[in-house]
């Protein structure tokens, strides 16, 4: 095939097959291939070569690639992977002086890694044995189906290699220990918060606004209702103005199971102006906090293979702190679930009254006499107060102005005397 018989070079046919030509040029080559058997055969052979090459597949990337890369990323150093060629091949390639140093370096790195590995394993095992079992029960996810599953590392080795794996094993061990506790010690459930319930955790709230005609017995009735339903009054405020409607606002904590009955009784206090009820799903909040968030944080925050021991200790301290925080949060959530909150507002139907009887003349005279006496006393006291406040100033300025005033007075009299 040459340019005298074919409008395109062979390389251009190849470029057409590789998609390297422009659209116009590709269309021209395609048209030529339909007409030229020789070029079509060449194209077919190239396709066949490419097809044959696709059979050259390699085995999947080893799992160690991911693991070692992660270790190198966190450790900021390149981890040399182990050569699988065996001792004979290794010795065969390492007998020169230059490569001997390299071999010693690799050997030392592997030995150091093994020492760190063994030490790390011992430290993590020791910790897992010392975690109080009572704490572990709180850390178990509510439902395994709702929590994100922990995917085990690809490494076949059971020994943890870094802080993340130690934390993961810690989590796994806790979950298992918690399960065992529940299976073996059912009596202990009573003393521990039971977060592993199947039904959703709903925190219920209600709001009732009532208008009453007789405000007097309202407070007593509210207290009685709360007591009757095994609840309590968390907050109560009464406003008793003389010339306006009296009001009472209260926050009641009622066991969720008796919320409906309590609200019904509260509505019977008078005419209901407004009533609302709502339920907040807090199950997800608990699940997220207890499992996913902590584990994801642990996985994201690990720092390196060389510092595994120190990192593991820091992780453990952090996890302990989280457990304590979770206990507090879970108790608060449990309280919200067990006791519904009722916001009660009671307002009196205010009726304005007229004072029809005016005061008597004697009373008016007596009041006038009393007011006159008060005015007299107030004026005397006022003068005395003024004198006490102004006297020092008057004495001062009188002393200062006495001589100039006297001189001017005498001068005035002297001036006036000749005229007279």
């Amino acid at each position, binding site marked *: 095939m040459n340019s005298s018989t074919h409008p395109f070079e062979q390389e251009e046919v190849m470029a057409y097959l590789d998609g390297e030509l422009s659209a116009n040029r590709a269309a021209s080559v395609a048209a030529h291939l339909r007409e030229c058997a020789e070029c079509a055969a060449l194209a077919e052979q190239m396709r*066949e070569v490419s097809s044959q090459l696709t*059979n*050259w597949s*390699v085995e999947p990337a080893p799992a160690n690639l991911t693991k070692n890369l992660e270790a190198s990323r966190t450790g900021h150093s390149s981890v*040399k992977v182990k050569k699988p060629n065996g001792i004979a091949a290794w010795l065969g390639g390492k007998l020169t002086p230059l490569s001997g140093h390299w071999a010693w370096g690799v050997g030392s790195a592997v030995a150091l890694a093994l020492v760190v590995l063994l030490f790390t394993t011992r430290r993590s095992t020791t910790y897992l044995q010392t975690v109080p079992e009572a704490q572990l029960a709180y850390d178990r996810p509510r439902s395994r189906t709702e929590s994100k599953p922990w995917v085990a590392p690809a490494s076949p080795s059971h020994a943890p290699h870094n802080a993340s794996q130690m934390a993961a094993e810690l989590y796994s061990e806790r979950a298992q220990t918690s399960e065992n506790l529940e299976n073996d010690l059912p009596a202990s459930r009573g003393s521990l918060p039971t977060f592993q319930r199947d039904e959703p955790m709903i925190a219920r709230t209600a709001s009732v606004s009532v208008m009453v005609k007789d405000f007097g017995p309202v407070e007593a009735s509210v207290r009685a209702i709360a007591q009757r339903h095994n609840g309590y009054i968390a907050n109560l405020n009464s406003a008793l103005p003389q010339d306006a409607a009296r009001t009472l606002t209260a926050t009641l904590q009622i066991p969720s199971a008796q919320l409906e009955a309590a609200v019904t009784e509260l509505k019977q206090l008078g005419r209901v102006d407004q009533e609302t009820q709502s339920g907040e799903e807090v199950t997800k909040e608990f699940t997220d906090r207890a499992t996913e968030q902590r584990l994801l944080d642990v996985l994201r925050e690990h720092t390196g293979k060389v510092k595994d021991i120190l990192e593991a200790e820091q992780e453990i301290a952090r996890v302990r702190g989280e457990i304590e925080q979770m206990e507090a949060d879970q108790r608060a959530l449990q309280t919200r679930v067990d006791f519904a909150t009722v916001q009660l507002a009671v307002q009196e139907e205010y009726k304005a009254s007229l004072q029809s009887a005016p005061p008597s003349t004697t009373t008016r005279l007596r009041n006038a006499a009393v007011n006159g006496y008060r005015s007299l006393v107030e004026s005397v006291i006022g003068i005395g107060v003024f004198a006490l406040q102004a006297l020092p100033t008057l004495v001062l300025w009188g002393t200062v102005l006495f001589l100039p005033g006297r001189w001017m007075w005498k001068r005035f009299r002297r001036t006036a005397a000749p005229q007279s």
Partner: protein
Amino acid sequence: MPGCESGSWRAMTSDEQLILELQQGSDGAFSELFLRYRERVWGFFRRRMNDTGQAEELAQETFLAVLHGAKRYEPRATFRSYLFGIAFNILAASRRKSAHDRTHAAAAAEEMPARSGSNPENVICIRQAVERLEAGEREVLLLREFEELSYEEIAKILYLPVNTVKSRLFRARMALRDILTATPGSLGGRK
């Protein structure tokens, strides 16, 4: 890999966008890039080296170089060519440094990669046929066929003119055709 956040939204993100996110410190972007190119980078080295351990090591170094050198990436070229450019440089450096490359190469002729879903005999034929190609032509062929780089991308990686790449690729394919044609069971003697 821990820290991987390959959600559906990230799966829709282009390689170039991911490397830009990596420049901003996104750990999930690197994880996604690693998942996308783990097998291809591994295959890049595995097809060029018979020592699986060394191939693994160099693949690891490649991704570390991407991670640490992400800030130097400029969106003038595709991430794929950028990645395999790094891989090729690491491969070249490894070959230069290794005083035992020939020793390994000699020993490697007996060590064939494990196959998955391919006929081992056919693979051996192809591998041996490729090994018989001239080094420059072989590299162009591999970059084109397996790394699926364009002529221009190959030219940039190998510091060659595009026409040289084209001619080398053509010669490599023709030579490979000849070799495989001479091999029983390959290409059926079509020439």
